[in-house]
């Protein structure tokens, strides 16, 4: 099982990605997916994610390798947007496929917690026409601590 890890420079269709992923793992009994999208209704007009190419995708691949080594998976998909997005647009999609659902749930949960707090992305939001950088959240680090 080679994880499929991608940075997306443009918008992507999460439903189509999940369909294709699930079709590729017919031996799996469960596919768990998480879709993160730009939160609306918060005066946010746009969100921009920047990355650093020499580190960001290699780091995501390393994370996928850790996930694949920790749970018995039939497949793992990670797609992460970079660039400017508007509310409702997909930011990140994680899908994990396993023979039994528990492994798939845990793997997707672990991957998301580590993407949020340990991957090389910097986020800024535009409100009222003004961009402001988003500072790290303490909750993200608390989420990470769950995994020991």
């Amino acid at each position, binding site marked *: 099982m080679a994880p499929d890890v991608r940075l997306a420079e443009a918008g992507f269709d999460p439903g189509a990605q999940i369909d294709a992923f699930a079709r590729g793992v017919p031996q799996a009994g469960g596919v768990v997916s998480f879709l*993160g999208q730009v939160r609306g209704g918060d005066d946010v007009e746009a969100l921009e994610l*920047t990355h*650093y190419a020499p*580190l960001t995708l290699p780091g995501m691949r390393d994370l996928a390798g850790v996930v694949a080594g920790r749970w018995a998976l039939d497949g793992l998909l990670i797609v*992460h947007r970079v660039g400017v997005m508007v509310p409702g647009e997909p930011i990140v999609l994680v899908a994990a496929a396993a023979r039994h659902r528990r492994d798939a749930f845990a793997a997707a949960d672990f991957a998301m917690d580590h993407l949020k*707090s340990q991957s090389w992305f*910097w986020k*800024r939001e535009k409100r009222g026409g003004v961009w402001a*950088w988003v500072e790290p959240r303490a909750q993200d680090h608390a989420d990470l601590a769950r995994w020991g």
Partner: protein
Amino acid sequence: MARLVFLGRLADVAGAGEMRVAPGAVAEIMADLPGELAQALAGPKVRLALNGALVSGVVVLAEGDELAFLPPVSGG
């Protein structure tokens, strides 16, 4: 020349995403930068990556090197 790369809010402080500098010790290069930028780059939570690999301690830049300054991440 060598290159400094500024990520996240550090790019705003620098007024650009990158800057060309003469090779040499990073401590000496930073001493020649504007005070506000040097202070931001030296922040305790700023990590450094030399040519795509995380480094710490004393860094000396050679011709063609790329040194990235990475503030705390806020992704996902």
